C-alpha cells in the first residue's frame, strides 16, 4: 500500500495588492481582479509533506485544491517542487462557500483518496485569515488534528512526531496515523522548483485546460499519465448541493464597508525645538506623561 500524503493547497488573491474592484456587490471576493498566488503557509505545508516523502521510501504526495480553473497553476507549482499528483475540486456550485462548506467539499475529495496516511494543510489562508478549514476538514473525516506544526521530528508508517508552535512556547506531540496536520509559517520554507521536475510536469493540465490548447495532447497524455490533473465536480464527489456554496454556508456577509478613515482634527507641528517643547510641556502638565 502506497504511503500517501495529501496536501490541501489554496490559490489566494494577493491581499497585499488589492485594488478597488476587489469585492463584488454581493460581498464576495472578485478573484478575477486580483493577482493570484500560492497561499504562503500552504508552501510550508507542502515542504513538510515532501520531507515526509523523503523519509518514507515509495511515499507519494498528492495535492488537492478547491477553486476556479486557474487554481491548476498552484498544482503545477507544487509538482515542480516535488508533488506527484494533483486534483482540482472545481464547480460553479462551490462558489461562495464559507469554511464549513469548503471543508465539507474538501473532506469528500480527500475521502476519494483513501487510504491516505497524512492530511496536511496550511495553518491559514491570507484571504480570510480564518485558520478553520484544516480543523473542520479533520472533524468531518474523523481525524485527530495537530495544528501549528513547526517541525517534523520523525515519521514512520504508523505514527508521526511533530513539534508545534503555541503562543507561549512549543509542544512536541505524537499521533498515530492517519492524522491531520496544519502547518505554521514558522516551519521550514518550501524548497525551490527543481529543473527536472519542471521539465517533467510543464505540460500537466486539467481536461478543461487541454480543451483550450491548440495542439493535440492525446498521445502525449497516453504516454505520460502523470500529466493529468484530475478535476472533480460536485457530481464526482456526490456532494449534497444544500451543503455547498452560499446555500450550505451558515455565515453570510451582511455588509461590507470599505475602510474609510475618520478624519480627526489634529494639530500639526514641526520638528523645530519650540514645537517639540510646547508639546512635551503640554503632555507633562496634563499628566499624560510624567
Amino acid at each position, binding site marked *: 500500500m502506497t504511503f500517501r500524503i495529501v496536501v490541501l493547497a489554496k490559490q489566494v488573491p494577493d*491581499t*497585499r495588492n*488589492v485594488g478597488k474592484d*476587489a*469585492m463584488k456587490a454581493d460581498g464576495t*471576493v472578485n478573484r478575477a481582479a486580483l493577482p493570484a498566488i500560492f497561499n504562503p503557509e500552504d508552501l510550508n505545508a507542502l515542504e513538510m509533506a515532501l520531507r515526509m516523502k523523503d523519509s518514507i521510501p515509495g511515499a507519494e504526495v498528492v495535492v488537492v485544491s478547491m477553486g476556479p480553473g486557474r487554481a491548476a497553476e498552484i498544482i503545477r507549482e507544487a509538482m515542480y517542487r516535488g508533488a506527484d499528483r494533483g486534483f482540482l475540486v472545481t464547480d460553479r456550485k462551490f462558489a461562495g462557500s464559507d*469554511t*464549513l462548506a469548503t*471543508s465539507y467539499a474538501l473532506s469528500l475529495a480527500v475521502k476519494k483518496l483513501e487510504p491516505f496516511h497524512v492530511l496536511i494543510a496550511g495553518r491559514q489562508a491570507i484571504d*480570510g*485569515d*480564518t*485558520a*478553520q*478549514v484544516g*480543523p*473542520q476538514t479533520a*472533524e468531518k473525516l474523523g481525524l*485527530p488534528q*495537530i*495544528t*501549528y506544526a513547526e517541525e517534523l521530528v520523525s515519521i514512520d508508517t504508523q505514527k508521526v*512526531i511533530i513539534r508545534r*508552535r*503555541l*503562543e*507561549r*512556547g*512549543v*509542544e*512536541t*506531540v*505524537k*499521533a498515530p496515523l492517519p492524522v491531520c496536520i496544519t502547518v505554521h509559517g514558522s516551519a521550514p520554507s518550501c524548497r525551490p522548483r527543481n529543473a527536472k521536475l519542471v521539465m517533467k510536469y510543464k505540460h500537466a493540465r486539467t481536461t478543461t485546460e487541454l480543451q483550450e490548447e491548440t495542439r493535440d495532447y492525446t498521445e502525449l497524455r497516453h504516454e505520460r499519465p502523470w500529466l493529468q490533473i484530475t478535476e472533480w465536480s460536485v457530481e464526482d464527489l456526490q456532494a449534497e448541493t444544500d451543503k455547498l456554496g452560499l446555500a450550505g454556508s*451558515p*455565515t*453570510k456577509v*451582511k455588509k*461590507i*464597508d*470599505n*475602510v474609510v*478613515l*475618520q478624519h*480627526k482634527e*489634529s*494639530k*500639526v*507641528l*514641526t*520638528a523645530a525645538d519650540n*514645537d*517639540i*517643547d510646547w*508639546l*512635551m*510641556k503640554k503632555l507633562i502638565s496634563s499628566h*499624560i*506623561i*510624567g
Partner: protein
Amino acid sequence: MNNVFVYCEITEEGHVAEVSLELLSKGRKLAGELGVKLEAVAIGSGIEKVSQEVFPFGVDVLHLADDPRLSPYRTLPHASIIIGLFKEEQPEIVLFGATSIGRDLAPRVASALRCGLTADCTALEIGDHTEPKTGKTYKNLLYQIRPAFGGNIIATIINPDTRPQMATVREGVMKKEIHSANHKGKVKNLDVSKYVKESDFVVEIIERHIEPQKLNIKNAQIIVAGGYGVGTPENFKLLYELADVIGAQVGASRAAVDAGLAEHERQIGQTGVTVRPKLYIACGISGAVQHRAGMDQSAQIISINKDPNAPINQIADYVIIGDVAEVLPKMIKYYKQNSK
C-alpha cells in the same frame, strides 16, 4: 431565546485567561441586551477555584469539567465535552478567545455542530436583519464584525439560520469590566466520562516548553511604537530611550518586525496585539488599516512622520512632521530637563 456561552481558557498557571475575562464582560452585555443568561465553560484539572474568578463578571452558570486528563489542553477531549454540552444546551451565542487554543478548538466544534464561526472579530453587536431576496426578517442576530481581505474591508457577518452563532476574538479587543464583585452564579459539574471516549486521547504530548508570560505591551499606559520609517536599529534605540524616560513600552508595526527592528511580541495590529493606551506615539508608521485596527482606540495619538499625508496623521491628535532621528532626541532632552 437561549443563553450566551463563553469558553473560559485556563492558563498554564491555572487561572482563567485574560481574553476569557474580556469575553465574559462582552458576553454579559450581549446577554443583558437579549434578556438571557450568561454561562461559562471551563475545562481542566484542579480548577474548582475558577468560579471565584468568573462570577464577578456576571456569570450565571459555570459548567466545570475537572479531570486530570484534561490538562494540558488537547483538542479531542476538550472538543468532545464542548460539542456534547452544546448539543444539550443549544446556546444562542458562543465566544472563544482567538488564541492558539481557541482557534484550534472552535472550528472543530463548529464543524461538528454545523454552525457558522467567524474568526478574529473586532466588534460584536446585536441587530436585526432582513433577507433582501425573501424579505424574511430576523430579530436580534449577532453581528460579527471583522476586518477581512488583508484589512482592506470591514465585514459584518451574520448566521441567520444556524445556532449557535460562534465567534473568536483576540486578547485586548474587548474591555475587561467587573459586573459586580458580589455576583454569585451556579456551578454545574460535568460528568467528564459521559462526554469523552478513550480514543479522544490518541494524541500524546511528549514534551512541553512553555515560557512564562513574556513582554506584555497590552496593558501599557503609554506606548512608543516604531515603524519601517524608523529605518535602523540605532534609530530604534531612540524609541527605547524615550520609552525608558517617560515610562512607556515599545511597540512596532509589522513592517518593523519583518525588518528585524523589533520582536514579534511587540507587533501591534490585526495580526499582533490590540492596545488602548492613554498615549500612543507612532514613529515612522504610515498607518495601514491592519496597524490601525490594533491602536485606533488609544486615548491620544501622536504621529511623527516625514510625510504630511501619511494616513496615520488623520487619526492623530498631534502630528509632528519630521524625521524620527531628529524629533526623538529633542523629546528625550526636554523631558529629562523638565520633569520632576
